[in-house]
Each structure stands twice: as C-alpha cells, then as structure tokens.
C-alpha cells in the first residue's frame, strides 16, 4: 500500500464498499429481468402463444356513437340511425380480386366502387374490415347470408348513420359527414380514424365540432380465423360516445325566416343576440338535403348541386360576399363622428351629385336631398353626405372603424368556409392591386361600393356592435355541450355583454342609432313603410325597431341607362342589384340584430326590408325572457 497517495486508501475502501453495493443492486435488477422473462415465457406463454399464433388475434375498434346536435330548445337537428352494412376483410390482401368480383355479382357494384374496394382492401391495416355497402335492405342482407360460403371474410354489421330530421332547413349550419379523407388525418392520430365505417364532419357544425362530436373508440379483442371471420371475443373495452351539442339556433325562428325567404330565389338571413353573440337563425336559400350525403350521394345529384346558379351548397350567410352598399353608411358616419371630421349638427349639402375632377358621383335621389345632418342623412340614405363625410374622415379612419365593426376579417364563429370579405385600405390596395389609393376610392367606400365586400354575417355583426353600445361581440353557435344528454342545459341568461369595448364614443353610437330609428319610423325615412307590419297595422311599440336599407350594384349603371330610365326589373335576374337590409330591436333597448340579403332583389327597402322586419319582430316575440316556460320544458326533458 506504499504506492497509494495520502487519502487514497480511504477513498478506495469507500469506493469498494459502494461499488459492491451498486453491483449487488444491478444483480438484483438483472434477476428481476430474468424473473419477468420467466413470467412471460414460461408461466404465461400459452396465453401469448394463442395471441401470436399466425397473427390470428385482432384488435378491432368499436366506433363510438357520434354526439347528437340539438337547437337551443332541445329539438334534434342531427341524430344517429341504425344501419345494416356489408363489411369485408382480407387476409393481408390475398385473393381480393376474386372476392370483389363475387361481391359485384351480389351487389352490382359498378367499376368505380370495385376500384375503391380493391384499394381499401389492399391497404387495410391488421385486417380491419372495410365497408362494401351501407343501408342494406332486408333482401340484401338475406342475399349476403345466403351466399356466405362464396364470400369469405364478408359479414353483416350493425352500425349507425347520421340522420338530419330537419333536412334542408338547417343544412348549412349542421353540414354533413362523410368518409375520412386523407387531409382529415392531418394533425389527428386518433386510431378510430382508421375505421372504415367512421364518418367525419365535412361541413358546418359537423366539421367545426368534429373533435368533440366524435368520441373515443372502444376496442374488442377478437380471435379470427384465417379468412377474418370472428371465432370468439376475448376482451372488450367500451368507448366513450361523442359529446352532444346544444346550438344557439332557435329552430322555430329558423323555420320562420326560411319560410319568409322562400318567395325570393336566393338570399340569406342572419339573426344575432347583440349581448351574447348567439346566432339565433342563419338562413341561406336555397339549401340542400344533407341526408343525401349521409346516405351516399350519387354523381348526378352532386353535379346538380354544384352546377346550380343559386349555389345551394354555399352557406351564403358566411361565404357569400356582397358590396354592403348603403348599409355601410353607419361605418362612414361613425368614422367621421369619431374623428371629429363632422359633429352631429354639421349639415352638408346635396344637389344630386358631387364632382371630383371630371367624374360625377351621383346621389340615388336625382334632385338631391338639400342640406342634412348625419342623422337625417342616414335616415334618407343621402349619398352626397357620405361622399363628403368619407372624404373628411379619410380612408384610414373609415377602414379602421370598418375593421373594428368586423369587416375584412373572419369572425370567431368557427364554421369552415367563412369568408373574410374585404375592408379596403391603402395597404390593402397597394398589396392586392399594386396601385395607390385614390380619392374616388374613398368616395365609393363611403357608400359601401367599390372594393368593399362583406358577408351577411359581418353585416349582422356590425349592426349588433352598433346596437349593443360598441362591444366587440362575436357570433357564437354552441350554447352548451355535454356527453350525457341529461347534462345538456343552456347557460344562465346574460343581460350585459362580456365582450371587450370597442371604445367608441357612446354618444356617436346613439346618433347613428337615432338615424337608423328614423329610417323606419320617421316620415322621411327610406323604409318608413316598415313601421307597419305585413297586414298594414302599426307595429306594437314594444317591438319597434331601427334599420338601414342597402342596394348593392352588381352591374354599373351607365349614364346612358340612367338617361333612358331603364329600371332594374327590366334587367335579367343575374344582373339586378342585390337588396340588403340590416336592423336591430327593440329600438329603445336593443337585444337582437338581423341582416338580410336578397340576391338580385333590386331594392333594399322593398324586398329585403319586409323580410328583416318580420324576422326581427318574430325574434322579439320569441324573446326567452317572455317565454321562460320553453326553457323549463327543456331542462326537464
């Protein structure tokens, strides 16, 4: 030990002790490994041998049942229905050609279906069954059972398909489901998506709430023979059904608005609760029957839907974009007031047109309105006033206020396919068109024409934010969701907006609301016919409302046409103006906002106005604070 340095002896003996301890621990752990091997390979080997034998053991997923969708009063909008279907499994792709030929003899599949089946059978992982045909009738089920010896791996399975009891009425809101597509898998690694029978939300709420509605798969461990027939079930774990959803939509109001819209070829209505943002109705006509998708749509049905000029598959409420026309004048007015470019008493002249360089900007009233203040200008929809107001406020202010009221951006509604519309600005024009902003552009924007584009939903949002005193309320479709249906209940009602304030001067908003009130209720208002209901009776003061008409040019009116006095009704349907109307009520304590667009409906006050009036009055009549019994019924259901 002479070689050791001082202290090394101590270090060394401690090291030896602890190293031996460590070695002992490792020995124990290695022994534990050996024990585990003994457990797996000797004690339990029979069980595992069965499990592994020829890969005969299969874990099969049990599809969860998809969450149901109800309207705010508990009426079903999307439910599940039993569905008998023929399924097929293949033994790792062997003999699929023969099998598909035989299936073709039984079901008369056709080339396209045969190719799909071949593709799916070859790629199916771990012998997961694929769907041959769904919604089988009694006779078809019998035919499969009768031919069973010739159809190895084919069996009948009881599953569920989606059913939409209201059909076309809520087609755009609910959307529909379809087979899982490759792009649906992106970012989702839920194994249930591998299941051939699973249906995935493609449009509407079915899509936006997909991950909640789907639920979690259960699994059943089955022993199968070499052609995939189940011999016995070994183990089963139940999945969890998808979460049920209670929507903000009021089905009866939706029905009313749709009925009211029927006399027009094509258009859209949106009704919002200005406090909560709840979408009470969202109509886009014409619609389509989502049940054709659930059943499996045929090629010709699909073509017909795609080719129709009225675009039935499009939800025009969120993805139709229209120049807002005069309904945008509230934005111009608010921008001018907020920037103090004008005050509520500023009077601006109108003699029928205004000139910028050598271009004439016309007012819709040939002789002009004379001099008006901002409130009167809204009520009479004087174009000249808003050309000048927009010029004084400047493009930057107008586009800023437009943006804050919801234009040019997607809302937080969450439905797929929502358009952002266009709120033009200097930067927007430079980027999109590569040209600088012109004074004439400001004039056009001032009356909601030119580059300006908005969806009906955005018009409703704008109206709601003006009506609620300037809170940035966002549209909302989901009232509540819960997995057990009994727990599905609407949240307690709210009277104050919880959304952040947009920081507009409340007095300026009041001036604008006054102008909108006069549109309907003053003798000089552009839509003063609407103070009477459809029977010509004065509307109950409790339901008095405010609004604004708009007419959006589809085709520019040439000076020649102006001189010839060609009326809109003489033009072909697709060239006529769009008719717009936005409104809110009750006038003294606003709670609901409504936007209506009638495609090619010519004049806002005449076609869109009465629809807006009737829908809004109906909404106010249905106000839940007057009808608490409906909610009580809902809770006890």
């Amino acid at each position: 030990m002479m070689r050791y340095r001082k202290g090394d002896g101590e270090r060394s003996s401690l090291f030896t002790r602890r190293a031996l301890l460590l070695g002992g621990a490792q020995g124990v752990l290695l022994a534990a490994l050996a024990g585990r091997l003994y457990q797996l390979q000797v004690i339990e080997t029979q069980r595992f041998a069965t499990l592994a034998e020829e890969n005969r053991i299969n874990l099969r997923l049990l599809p969860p049942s998809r969450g149901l969708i109800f309207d705010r009063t508990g009426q079903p909008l999307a439910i599940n229905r039993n569905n008998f279907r023929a399924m097929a499994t293949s033994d790792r792709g062997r003999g699929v050609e023969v099998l598909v030929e035989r299936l073709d003899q039984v079901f008369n599949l056709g080339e396209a279906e045969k190719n799909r089946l071949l593709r799916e059978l070859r790629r199916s992982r771990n012998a997961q069954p694929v769907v041959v045909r769904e919604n089988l009738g009694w006779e078809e089920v019998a035919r499969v059972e009768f031919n069973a010896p010739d159809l190895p791996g084919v069996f009948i399975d009881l599953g569920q398909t989606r059913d939409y009891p209201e059909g076309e009425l809520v087609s755009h809101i609910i959307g529909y489901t379809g087979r899982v597509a490759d792009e649906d898998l992106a970012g989702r690694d839920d194994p249930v998506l591998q299941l051939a029978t699973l249906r995935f939300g493609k449009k509407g709420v079915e899509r936006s709430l997909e991950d909640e509605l789907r639920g979690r798969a259960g699994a059943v461990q089955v022993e199968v023979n070499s052609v995939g027939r189940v011999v016995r079930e070994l183990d089963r774990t139940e999945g969890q059904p998808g979460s049920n959803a209670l929507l903000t939509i009021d089905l009866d109001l939706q029905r009313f608005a749709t009925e009211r819209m029927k006399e027009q070829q094509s258009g859209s209505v949106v009704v919002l609760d200005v406090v909560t943002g709840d979408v009470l109705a969202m109509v886009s006509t014409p619609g389509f029957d989502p049940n054709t998708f659930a059943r499996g749509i045929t090629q010709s049905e699909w073509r017909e839907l795609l080719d129709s000029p009225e675009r039935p598959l499009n939800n025009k409420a969120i993805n139709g974009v229209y120049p807002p026309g005069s309904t945008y004048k509230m934005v111009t007015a608010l921008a001018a007031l907020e920037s103090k470019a004008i005050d509520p008493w500023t009077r601006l002249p109108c003699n029928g047109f205004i000139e910028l360089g050598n271009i004439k900007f016309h007012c819709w009233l040939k002789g002009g309105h004379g001099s008006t203040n901002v409130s009167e200008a809204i009520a009479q929809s004087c174009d000249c006033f808003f050309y000048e107001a927009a010029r004084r406020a400047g493009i930057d202010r107008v586009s800023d206020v437009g943006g804050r009221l919801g234009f040019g951006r997607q809302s937080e509604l969450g439905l797929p396919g929502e358009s952002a519309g266009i709120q033009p600005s200097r930067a927007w024009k430079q980027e999109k068109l590569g040209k600088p902003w012109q004074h004439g552009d400001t004039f056009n924007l001032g009356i909601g024409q030119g580059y300006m584009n908005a969806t009906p939903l955005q018009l409703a949002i704008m109206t709601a934010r003006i009506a609620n005193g300037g809170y940035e309320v966002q549209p909302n479709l989901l009232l509540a969701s819960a997995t057990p249906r009994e727990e599905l209940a609407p949240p307690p009602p709210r009277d104050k907006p919880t959304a952040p304030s947009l920081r507009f001067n409340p007095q300026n908003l009041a001036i604008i609301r006054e102008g909108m009130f006069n549109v309907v209720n003053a003798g000089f208002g552009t839509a003063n016919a609407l103070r009477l209901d459809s029977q010509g009776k004065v509307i109950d003061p409790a339901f008095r409302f405010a609004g604004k008409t708009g007419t959006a040019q589809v085709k520019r009116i040439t000076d020649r046409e102006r001189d010839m006095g060609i009326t809109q009704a003489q033009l072909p349907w697709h060239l006529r103006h769009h008719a717009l109307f936005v409104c809110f009520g009750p006038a003294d304590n606003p709670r609901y906002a409504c936007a209506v667009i009638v495609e090619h409906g010519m004049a806002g006050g005449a076609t869109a106005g009465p629809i807006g009036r009737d829908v809004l009055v109906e909404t106010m009549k249905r106000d839940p604070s007057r009808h608490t019994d409906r909610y009580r019924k809902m809770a006890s259901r």
Partner: protein
Amino acid sequence: MSLASPAVVGLDAPAPVGFAEKIWRINWGLALVLTAIAGIGVVALYSAAGGRFDPWAARHAVRYGVAFGIMLVVALMHPKVWLALAWPIYIASLLLLVAVDVVGKTGMGAQRWLMIGPMQIQPSEITKVAVILVLARYYHGLSREQAARFLYVLPPLAVILAPVGLVMVQPDLGTAMMVLLGGGALLFVAGVRLWMFLGAAIAAVGCLPLAWSFMHEYQRKRVLTFLDPDRDPLGAGYHITQSKIAIGSGGAFGKGFLKGTQSSLNFLPEKQTDFIFTTFVEEWGMAGAFILLGLFALVLVWGFSIALRSQHHFGRLVALGVTAMMFLYVFINTAMVMGLLPVVGVPLPLVSNGGTAMVSVMFACGLLMGVSVYRDAQLPRKR
C-alpha cells in the same frame, strides 16, 4: 503512507510497461464476450430483415469491426491522455447537442440526428461517455473529505444536468435518464453523502409535475400507456402489447431461427433498433434471452473487477462509470420491451442497429480496458 508531498511520484513505481506487455494486458476475454454479443446482434438483424444480410446485418458486422479497432486504440492510450481530454470532449459533446437542438434531423418526433458530411451522428451517445470522463476526472482530484462535502457536489451536478437539459429539449427521455442515473452512480461511489441522494430523490418527485408540463404529447402518451396499456390498445399501447406477445409466445426455447411471426409480419415497431431484443427472444426463447443477458452480466462482472483492481481513482471511476452505463443500456432497453418501463428509446448495446451507439459503446469499453492495461499507472491528483 509517509509519502505526503505531491511532488514526489511513487518511489516504488513499477518498471514502465512495454508494448507487448500492454497488448498482453488487454482483456481479451472481455473482447471475446463483446464479440459474442455483437455476433448475436448480426444474427438478430439478419432475422429482422427477413433472412437477409441487407440492410442491417452486414453493416452491423462491418461497423463492429471498425469499432473493435477503435476500442483497441483507446485501450492502449495512457489514462493521463483521457484526464487531459475529459473536459474538451465534454465541451465538444455539449456543443454538438446544442447543434442538434438547432439544426438537427427529426426522427420519431424528436431531434436526435446531426449530419456531418455523409455521416449521421447522434451526439447524445457521445455525451454519455463524456460525462463519465469528466466526473471521474473531477473526483480524481478530490479527497474523500472534499467529496463528502455539499459544496463540492455542485459542479458535478452541473456537469450532469447541462446535457440532461439539452437532450430533454430534443426530446430524448432515454438519454436523459441514462445520464442522470449513470452520473448518480458515479457520485455514489465517489463518496457523496447518502442524505444528498435522498434530498435529490425528494426534489425529483417534487419536480415531476413540472417535467410533465414540459413533455411532448407523445411522451405523455407513452407514460400513460405504460401505466395502463389497455388505455389505447391500437394506438400508443400497441407497441408494448405486440412486444409482450412476441416475447411471451417465444416460450422457453423460442420459435426457431427466422420463424418469429410477430416480427416477420411487421407487428413489431422499430424491430431493428429499440425492439431488437424482442425479435431475438421471440425466435430463441428464454434460453436465448438468458444467454444474451448472461453475456452482458459477464461484461458487468469484468467491469467491476477492473474497477476494483485499478490503483488510481480516475481509473476506478471510469471503469465503474462505463459499467454503470452498460448496465443502464441493457436494463432500460430490455425492461422497456418487456413492459416494465415506459418506451423511452434506448438501444440495446452492440445488438441494435445504429452506428454512433456502437462506436460510443466500444469507445467506452476501450476506456474500461485501458483502465485494466494501465491499472498501476501513477496519476497525480493535481497537476
């Protein structure tokens, strides 16, 4: 014990060892055992490829040949070289880890690879060796009293935690676990007080929720799956279920060479890397498993005996560190495929397909043999 002055280097130092003597002192028995293990690797990889030398088995054999050469060279280097190179190697490995976090290739959801020319290297494998060298060097320079003191445990803690932090970012739970446990083992034999380990254990339990919040979704899933494999039988639990089926169905003597159904039908994930043990054991049964584990146990016994026979502290610590690392590799990997630990991605040394791990394991074995070759070298505590 009278030779107190550090300046006086062993009066009774043995005569310098000649080259032939060094070659003789290399632990050829250990080399034979390692070669046997690598041979099992070739067999298993041949089988994993469905009875072909391509793409894994042939390259594995060639790699082992190269790595064997590296091991011999390393074994013949004087420990003072490693004493001098410990810190540079450590720093370089940290830099490589940072490089991986910044520009690395992503594999299986984690960034682990770095391309250097045509070579794909995995710096986390180098780190394991580097940490052993640095810790051994550090404790070589401390007396027992110093090693027992609290302040002196802080630098090695930093040495361990720096790479752990970097690999957690990648995220590579397996390497983090190995560096942590391997470093801990070194601290233990170096004489750190037991209450400090207790404290660290308590702190670690306290940090669990924090660690959970930093984990990737797929890692959480693995932990949850480990705790309850039936939770998601076709998803994350699938690998472990299938691996257990493969091992269990192998039985006492296996299904026979090239007859493993589970691996040939692609039921096993990563069958050439992390799950190679499963592939082997399905075909060779418990007998094969015991032989393989027995060979590893021999390596461990040799490692311990080399550690105990070394006359210098550096050598003792290096040998023990390498042994601990070997043990952790084997234990974590096999326990994982048998469903005793969560799936964390640790290869089975010398058997799993993979170049960097092979070279770093053989490098470590070279260090171990070097300790044996230079067991009576004179290494001053301070220079």
